[in-house]
């Protein structure tokens, strides 16, 4: 306990500087602007800032990225409320009640509620990060190649299922495409070049940042330019700072959404958008005012914004303890940690416990800055939303091109960005979710290495994959998820349950 406190105090001391204050305020503000602008997502913001911070000292660089992440997920509520366009996918549920509130002349109030809900949601998630990361890291120490293999399979299956709830088949296809993309280039056991066809650049494989900037950057620029321009619901704001009673009135919803958001965030690849949707659906089911949902319900808005922000610390929990991202922006954060020499994973509590506590402090600082800037700069941020897209988008694309180039200094990464951007655009339009694809690119190496290592350890005996306790839980869950998504199996189970009461009552 004392050593944990020592690590916490050491981490706190490392952030006591003017540079920290400057970076926190600046990065959170830019994050809010990125989130607020339709076409700029949190993933892309964190990816671009990874390229902008790679010369910084590691602690400050990760701090900046976390501030951008928190700011962007929150900032997306601005355009959701004022334009009826979610600034990031995480704010899609916010549009349902945020925009009607703006149309009713309560845009300022909606923005205030979104700010406080986001802040409380992040804080709930932070508490769970603090509580869960150390024991989870300890549990992860028991993971061997078998468990990491199943964890990768489970991640792809659940991400595919939850990110494409109405068509999991497409979610799984996206995940496998991501895994296959990760197979290109030199593999890590024997350094054999797969699918490189003698091209030197391909032998290096696809880096995560160009892939991410492509599917979340170029694809989004093309979507924004294709769709008709958005119109602001109002340019006048009512009172922005909410009263205490406005917040405490829905305390049950806030706590429920915070818990749901954090839990969804922890699941590999399933991020803030699903956190918001599931929180919103749960709030509507439990609400006495369910009829107001979708017509300007303050409770609905509270649930969506608490749920998406709570998913941020949730998504960082598996990053720190397993080296597996909980969401797409967390995937970039994971890549950035590796770039800066931090090795998250099961050994983190042994190797760098102060980094875990440092992450908690970074999230708290980002939350405070987000709440302050969100409430204080409500009016100036209105002007940001009025910047025309024909001015914003070319500058965004210039950053999409130079960002990936800056990390590796090779034009090949620009072409990778373009290629994945075009494929990503077409796949998105055909309702393939991008989060499982990105997760696949990250998990590909983990899956590949651990399956082959485990097969060698077991000397080809696959039974051990199914009998070890943690493996059994993981493959059991995976199988249940797959079977549950097959309509024929669902129908069979439903029929069995319908039949049982009748046969029980039969003489």
């Amino acid at each position, binding site marked *: 306990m004392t050593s944990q406190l020592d690590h916490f105090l050491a981490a706190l001391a490392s952030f006591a500087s003017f540079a920290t204050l400057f970076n926190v305020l600046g990065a959170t503000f830019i994050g809010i602007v990125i989130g607020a602008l339709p076409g700029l997502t949190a993933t892309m913001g964190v990816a671009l800032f990874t390229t902008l911070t790679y010369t910084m000292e590691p602690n400050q660089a990760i701090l900046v990225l976390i501030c951008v992440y928190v700011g962007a997920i929150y900032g997306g509520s601005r355009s959701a409320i004022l334009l009826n366009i979610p600034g990031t996918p995480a704010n899609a549920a916010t549009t349902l009640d945020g925009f009607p509130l703006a149309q009713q002349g309560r845009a300022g109030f909606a923005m205030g509620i979104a700010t406080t809900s986001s802040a409380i949601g992040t804080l709930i998630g932070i508490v769970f990060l603090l509580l869960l990361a150390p024991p989870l890291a300890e549990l992860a120490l028991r993971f061997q190649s078998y468990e990491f293999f199943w964890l990768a399979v489970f991640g792809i299956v659940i991400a595919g299922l939850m990110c494409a709830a109405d068509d999991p088949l497409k979610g799984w296809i996206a995940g*496998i495409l991501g895994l296959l993309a990760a197979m290109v280039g030199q593999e890590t056991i024997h350094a054999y070049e797969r699918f490189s066809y003698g091209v030197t650049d391909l032998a290096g494989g696809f880096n995560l940042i160009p892939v991410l900037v492509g599917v979340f950057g170029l694809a989004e620029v093309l979507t924004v330019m294709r769709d008709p321009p958005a119109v602001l619901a109002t340019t006048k704001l009512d009172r922005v700072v909410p009263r205490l009673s406005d917040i405490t009135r829905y305390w049950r919803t806030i706590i429920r959404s915070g818990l749901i958001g954090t839990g969804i965030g922890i699941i590999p690849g399933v991020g803030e958008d699903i956190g918001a949707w599931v929180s919103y659906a749960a709030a509507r089911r439990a609400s006495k005012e369910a009829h107001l949902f979708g017509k300007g319900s303050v409770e609905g808005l509270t649930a969506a914004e608490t749920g998406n922000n709570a998913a941020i610390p949730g998504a960082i929990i598996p990053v720190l303890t397993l080296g597996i991202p909980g969401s797409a922006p967390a995937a970039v954060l994971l890549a950035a940690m590796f770039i800066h020499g931090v090795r998250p994973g099961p050994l983190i509590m042994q190797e760098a416990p102060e980094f875990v506590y440092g992450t908690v402090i970074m999230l708290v600082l980002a939350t405070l800055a987000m709440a302050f800037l969100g409430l204080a700069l409500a009016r100036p941020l209105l002007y940001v939303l009025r910047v025309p897209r024909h001015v914003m988008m070319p500058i965004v694309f210039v950053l999409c091109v130079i960002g990936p180039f800056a990390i590796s200094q090779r034009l090949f990464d620009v072409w990778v960005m373009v290629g994945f951007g075009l494929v990503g655009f077409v796949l998105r339009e055909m309702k393939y979710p991008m989060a499982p694809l990105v997760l696949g690119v990250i998990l590909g190496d983990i899956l590949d290495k651990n399956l082959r290592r485990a097969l060698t350890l077991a000397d080809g005996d696959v039974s051990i994959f199914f009998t070890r306790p943690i493996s059994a839980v993981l493959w059991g869950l995976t199988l249940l998820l797959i079977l549950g998504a097959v309509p024929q199996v669902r129908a069979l189970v439903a029929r069995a349950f319908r039949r049982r009461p009748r046969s029980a009552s039969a003489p």
Partner: protein
Amino acid sequence: MSDPDKPTLARHDLWTGLALALLGLATAEESWRMPRLEERGIDPWTAPGIVPGVLGAALAVLGVVLALRAAKEVRAAPAARPVRIFGEGDARRRFLVALALNLVYACLLVGRIPYAAATAVYVFAFMAVFGLEPRRPGVLARLAVFGLVTAAATAGVIYLFETLFLVRLP
């Protein structure tokens, strides 16, 4: 009951499913042909082709399932209008122009002509193409504003990456 006038993805899914199945089979076949590295005394369970082979086979199976499902939907509603992925009318025009400008910048200009010139030409052209409405007065004033924004954006990006981050620009 689904709306019969609503465009569907069934035909796209049918062709995509078939393409994915082919891609999966090709990947599995190529993985099978990868060396097992026995001459280096390497454990056959660590052969490089194992995982891509399994993934290729899985993709082929999912592709076939997608194609079969889509074929059923197409048979059920043969006259259904397919979704226009690139939009229609003005939306399609805006998409194609944005795509062309982005591709020319990223694949043809960057790396071939000086970075500052490539970026300035692209940013100004993008703003002029999408931001000018010929019938509205003040074309020259707007062009001047676009010029200023182009200069500021280009100089800003170059300063940031070249001077602050010490990146050798393409």
